[in-house]
């Protein structure tokens, strides 16, 4: 990054510039690092969480359930079972004698009470090391109750958050292909990798509705178990947030021959490209025409206001740190369309190809970093020259303390930032923070101690 910022020796090759230097990634965080990353359980939980009519039972001590109880603003148009916190709350007794009995009883009790369409059982660190046979308990419960009860093997230590995504996809894969597709219309799609934060999925769905493209399932924003079971009836999988869902898309391609495309709904360019790509794949000339018309209309609607904001934002600089790499790419493009320049881009879960693409896209002197530590982040921001930071919950107060504007593009976003309207909302949010009078008050930006 720079000589004046101390980087752990083990992390030197995870930091570079967009000048083509290789970025090492996809490995465990260095012990002792104040990493911004989470674990396998976290990865699986965020992906499966938005499935609204399933029970989500965390099998382990209470913490893992307590911290993931309704923390993601994934909206539902129906049931809201996903927003409740269920834990087997394993205690010392179960550490000695095993927790299977408790899990079995919990399942019976909850299924009888809530009549869910399915259940996910998250096996955490402790369940992993005490040797509970969660698979067997789930299988038996599934037979007993006649609904899918799916084990999610997510002990935190078994990899990184990316591993958790894969674990979640494995769990979903056991559902896909078990439902009846006889009523699925031709040319239908699945929307993968949108989690309906602040209702973003509904925006995206509305575009496809205008295009006349039927949607079978949305995985996992506002999802229903029975729709996921029928997802293999689709003609195309449209994958956003590639980091979390690509594994499932590949699995469905292999098993059912369903092609997939990777898209993003952040920014005009990427949203339009997504809609066009879908229309192209579906050999439905009408869909393309409608998509073009929709893009024209939507862009025209928000352009005047965006132009105004662009004038005010042009020339400002941004540091961004996202969960997945695909979003980082989209954001760099979207920010560029607002006249803003990205000076640091990084993410928690990027792969080799992602970083290469990010390097291609950014300016040569943009710092590219995998799994940034708080320390590196603080030092970088404190050097000055950054007007806005885009990140998640743990980064917000750090940016503010350094007198830097902030925008949450993570779980805790409060407004939909996807699609055309979302682009305007994004610009407004960025502007509201960047232009806040609070930054003009007399505080001096100094060094991080």
């Amino acid at each position, binding site marked *: 990054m720079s000589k004046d910022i101390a980087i752990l020796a083990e992390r030197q090759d995870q930091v570079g510039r967009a000048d083509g230097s290789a970025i090492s990634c996809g490995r465990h965080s260095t012990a*002792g690092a104040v990493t911004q990353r989470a674990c396998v359980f976290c990865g699986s939980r965020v992906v499966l969480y938005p499935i609204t009519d399933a029970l989500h039972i965390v099998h382990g001590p209470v913490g893992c359930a307590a*911290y993931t109880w309704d923390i993601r603003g994934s909206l539902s148009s129906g049931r809201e079972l996903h927003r409740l916190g269920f834990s087997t709350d394993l205690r010392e007794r179960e550490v000695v004698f095993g927790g299977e009995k408790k899990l079995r009883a919990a399942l019976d009790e909850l299924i009888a009470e809530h009549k869910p369409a399915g259940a996910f059982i998250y096996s955490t660190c402790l369940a992993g090391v005490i040797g509970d046979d969660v698979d067997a308990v789930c299988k038996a419960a599934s037979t007993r109750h006649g609904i899918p009860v799916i084990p999610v093997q997510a002990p*935190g230590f078994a990899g990184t958050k990316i591993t958790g995504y894969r674990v979640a996809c494995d769990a979903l894969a056991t559902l896909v292909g078990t439902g009846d597709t006889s009523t699925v219309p031709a040319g239908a799609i699945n929307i993968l990798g949108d989690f309906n934060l602040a209702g973003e999925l509904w925006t995206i769905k509305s575009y496809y509705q205008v295009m006349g493209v039927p949607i079978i399932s949305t995985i996992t924003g506002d999802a229903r178990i029975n729709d996921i079971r029928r997802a293999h009836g689709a003609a195309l999988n449209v994958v956003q947030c590639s980091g979390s869902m690509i594994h499932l898309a590949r699995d469905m391609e292999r098993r059912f021959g369903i092609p997939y495309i990777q898209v993003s709904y952040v920014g005009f360019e990427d949203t339009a490209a997504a809609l066009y790509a879908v229309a192209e794949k579906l050999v439905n000339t009408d869909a393309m025409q409608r998509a073009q018309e929709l893009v024209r209309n939507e862009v025209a609607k928000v352009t005047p206001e965006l132009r105004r904001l662009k004038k005010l934002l042009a020339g400002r600089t941004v540091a961004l740190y996202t969960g997945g790499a695909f979003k980082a790419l989209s954001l760099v493009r979207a920010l560029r369309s607002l006249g803003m320049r990205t000076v640091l881009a990084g993410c928690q879960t990027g792969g080799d190809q992602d970083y290469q693409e990010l390097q291609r896209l950014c300016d040569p002197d943009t710092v590219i970093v995998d799994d940034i530590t708080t320390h590196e982040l603080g030092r970088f*921001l404190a050097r000055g020259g950054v007007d806005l930071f885009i990140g998640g919950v743990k980064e917000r107060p750090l940016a503010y303390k350094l007198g830097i504007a902030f925008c949450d593009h993570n779980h805790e976003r409060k407004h939909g930032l996807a699609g055309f309207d979302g682009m305007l909302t994004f610009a407004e949010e960025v502007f509201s923070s960047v232009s806040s009078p609070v930054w003009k008050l007399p505080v001096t930006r100094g060094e991080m101690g």
Partner: protein
Amino acid sequence: MLLRHTEADAPERKALTINPAKTCQPIGAMYAALGVHGCLPHSHGSQGCCSYHRSQLTRHYKEPVLAATSSFTEGSSVFGGQSNLLQAISNIFSIYDADVIAVHTTCLSETIGDDINQIVRKAKEDGLIPEGKYIFHANTPSYQGSQVTGFASMCKSMMDSFAEPADKPGDHIAIVPGWVEPADMREIRRIVEAFGVEVTLAPDTSGVLDTGLTGTSQYFPDGGTTIDELKACGSARTVISLGPSASGPAGRALESRCKVPCEVLELPIGLQGTDRFIQSLSVITGKPIPEQLKWERSRLVDLMSDMGQYFYGKSAALWGDPDQIVALSEFLCDLSMFPKYAVTGTPGKGFMKRMEKACENASGPCRYEEGQRADMHKMHSWIKADKPDVLIGGTHGKYIARDEDIPLVRHGFPILDRIGHQYFNTVGYTGGMRLAEQILNCFLDRQDRDAPEERFELVM
């Protein structure tokens, strides 16, 4: 709507916690460790634990919260986490330049049987701990206790690890403040200093988790108890543990280790709780109660009498930490209200006895429970059967508040959706005034909202 399936007579559960009124030990240990100056809390487990705790504390305090993790891998879960912790120790001292590392364990590292004492000895032998730097630790398996016991264990470890016995006691007083907010810690300090004595709070998160915006971000903020202060706790004239659950173990450890007399009190919340604290200080210091504090007390009593008619007979439902619930319950009774329901997920039989005492003069029937099944779901089923007038607890109560249309006074941990708790104390007489005002305004707002036109009043 969200909780519409909750029934009034929910069946007794054996295997399940729904919507827990607690979380796990390590987050309490992390919060306590942040109250030591120059200390980097370290989570010895998978990296998700650390991330969740930091996120939750950040949501509550709106402050940067720094902590490191051993980042367990599959290999460490089989062969033990020693090499991870050794590497972490080396990294933390060399890159972050922490003065002290506070290691807490997790369900994982406890179950595989990592021995932190032995690992720290090895770190010493290997020369990983520079001169003048320290490591201390607490065992906080997530399958025991709750966040409160995790906090208590880390506080106890501070005394066990640092307090130095002295031949002759000094004049200063040591206080273990309990799991309260940074603003409360400031207030406790102010109250003791009003007696003209020196005080060490251990831990002390003021100046750590309530810092201002200065355009700088210090990795280690100015606040926090220093190691020298922790050492000197051993020569304190007395140690007062505020809150038996969170602070009792630390105070008693100091007593048995350094022969410092220990007094365990309930949290100084409300009138009588604060009275007892101040009375103790007066006895310990041999000084009369300062005029300033007497005046503050008179103002709280004045408020209580001015608005007594609106408090009378009103009932509350509470959840959260046992120390907070017990102290609040007594204050409610002093306000002529009563704690109709209370649940704490923190296990411990002492809670029931303490509540019995706190509710001695309650103006109505009180129902309370502790432990694994004392969750929000259970309390909601009680509320369905018979509503209280106000809810008092952390943000997770907002579902019940919305579903049952009952006002909620946010208090305790975590508060994820309002501000104020970081800045304004609820301990002491001044804190009692704030609490009373918050509760009262709920009742008056409600009355204004619900009153028919002809009964809508200008003067209340």
